[in-house]
């Protein structure tokens, strides 16, 4: 038996998870597939006439820079999601490793990790990104933003995983494995991981939210790379060109609605999954 807590069949329909997954799937699939059907660079300026109203050709109209708002938004969702997933993969790996190892190894190693955890939870990441954004002067590559988000974002998840590890350490079946002569690594891999796995899924989704949110916040105030379409840069340009005042409210309302839908979808997916897993854990 390699996976003692292998999920049983779906016992109960979870409304939150269903709504969340539907929203996320539509947005993710749409933004990943649609770009194959256009050859126009959505960020190129002056491709179309400026400030056209919505029509069959331009679903959401065009903006003051002569870009198609709908297509810009599609690429924005795609780029933001890709950034979120990349950062989340990095953070989940680092936080799981540090959280589990701190919880199980203990001693000085744990104390050092905990001090860094507390520090990184306390320090607000946005000011740091603002300083770095100022130093590289708007040439912030996406890669650098992702790296910084990983460096400053691992602590939250690691904290939760460490506390899970602390309670698991004292459980009977862990002692059993230990007395049977299993090493630290096999115990973590075979006995602990299945327990931590559910939180990793929840943490993974929440981290996507964190990453998209932070990059977008940086872009909205003009300090990320605003040339690349993201959910933040589209709002940055709309604000810069006073979208509402020039009679192009969709330019700003469309990304707001999309962002709310995406964030709500991700949040419902993570809490719904958590609920579902809690129910399963109850019967396991």
């Amino acid at each position, binding site marked *: 038996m390699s996976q003692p807590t292998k999920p049983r069949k779906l016992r109960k329909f979870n409304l939150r998870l269903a709504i969340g997954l539907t929203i996320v799937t539509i947005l993710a699939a749409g933004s990943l597939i649609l770009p194959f059907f256009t050859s126009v660079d959505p960020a190129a300026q002056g491709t179309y006439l400026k400030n056209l109203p919505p029509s069959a050709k331009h679903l959401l109209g065009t903006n003051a820079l002569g870009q198609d708002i709908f297509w810009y938004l599609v690429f924005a969702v795609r780029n933001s999601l890709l950034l979120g997933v990349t950062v989340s993969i990095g953070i989940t790996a680092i936080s799981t490793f540090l959280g589990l190892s701190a919880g199980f190894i203990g001693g000085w190693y744990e104390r050092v990790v905990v*001090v*860094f955890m*507390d*520090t990184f*939870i*306390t*320090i*607000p*990441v*946005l*000011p*740091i990104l*603002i*300083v*770095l*954004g*100022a*130093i*590289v*002067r708007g*040439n912030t590559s996406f890669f*650098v933003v992702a790296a910084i988000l990983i460096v400053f974002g691992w602590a*939250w998840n690691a904290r939760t995983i460490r506390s899970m590890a602390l309670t698991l350490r004292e459980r009977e079946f862990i002692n059993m494995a230990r007395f049977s002569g299993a090493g630290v690594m096999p115990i973590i891999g075979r006995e602990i991981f299945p327990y931590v796995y559910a939180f990793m899924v929840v943490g993974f989704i929440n981290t996507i*939210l964190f990453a998209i*949110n*932070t990059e*977008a*916040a940086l872009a*909205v*105030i*003009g*300090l990320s790379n605003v040339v690349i379409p993201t959910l*933040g840069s589209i*709002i940055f340009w709309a*604000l810069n060109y006073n979208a*509402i005042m020039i009679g192009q409210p969709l330019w*700003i*309302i469309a990304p*707001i609605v999309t*962002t*709310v839908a995406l*964030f*709500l979808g*991700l*949040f*419902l997916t993570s*809490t719904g999954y958590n609920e579902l897993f809690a129910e399963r854990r109850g019967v396991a």
Partner: protein
Amino acid sequence: MKLAQYVVQRFIGYLLVLFIGITITFFLPRLMPGDPINNYISQVQARAGQSLSAEATQQLRDSLAELYGLQGDIFTQYRNYLARVVRLDFGPSFTYYPEPVSNILLDAMPWTAGLLITTTLLSWLIGNSIGLIAGYFNKRRWATVLEVVGIILYPIPYYILALVVILLFAYWIALFPLSPTFLPGPMTWNKAVSIIYNSFLPALTLILAGFGWNVLAMKALAVATKEDAYVQFARLKGTTDRTRMTNYVFRNAMLPQITALVLSLGFIFNGAIQTEVIFSYPGIGMTMRAAAGAGDYNLLYGAIILTIFSVATAALILDLIYPLFDPRIRLGG
């Protein structure tokens, strides 16, 4: 005895957070590609065209290196940097030369502090009260409605809330100004009123943003706590719903909520920066944005050190008043 140990532990933790935070802000920019001085010089060259001689460029480079404390090897720089942080001396601002950075930050600080302290307290109190009632009466229909409101509000980022609030209350129903204007001069009654009026929308944004989490978390805690044996015992003793809700359920359920507040302070500060910039509110966040745009690194560094210091200190204060609410730490149980 246990209390003293707790206080000492927290204080050492506080000093470590400050030290590590300040150290990271020193080293991180130095690991970044590109160098602020070269960036700045290429900017100046772009503006001045060919008229800048090689000698003048070198002079500019030297004086910038001196100004930013970039002379000597990295350990000398680091020592000088720490010394300056301890003396709270961040040098002159570039944009407002020769105004010292500390003066500019002192002017901006009350705005951010006032806005953040008010909204964080209000948001915590209102959110937790609503969450408590919704959790205590969780079988009622309106409790579910409140939870749904919390679920919708919680994941929305600060900048989106700020924009929605502006669209609703400054464009659609023009109740409030788009960006605040404050009366100059000494504090009078009129000025106080205008500050409150102009701060209303940014404050509303921050309260709404913190509200969702507090409602959701408190509701979950209250639902779990009200089934506990001591609450059932109190019910059998004949206490009223109100007493059980406040004196029994809330007193225990608030403890994790205080911890959650401590942990989210950094996040709340991120939100304050976004809100200030979008509303052009004259606090630390706005100062940072302006300094970043102008390449005013002294001001930027002062602001980030102040940020780390403020957030860490706020967390320490909350940690230190925590024993007042939790007798287990106070009395050593």
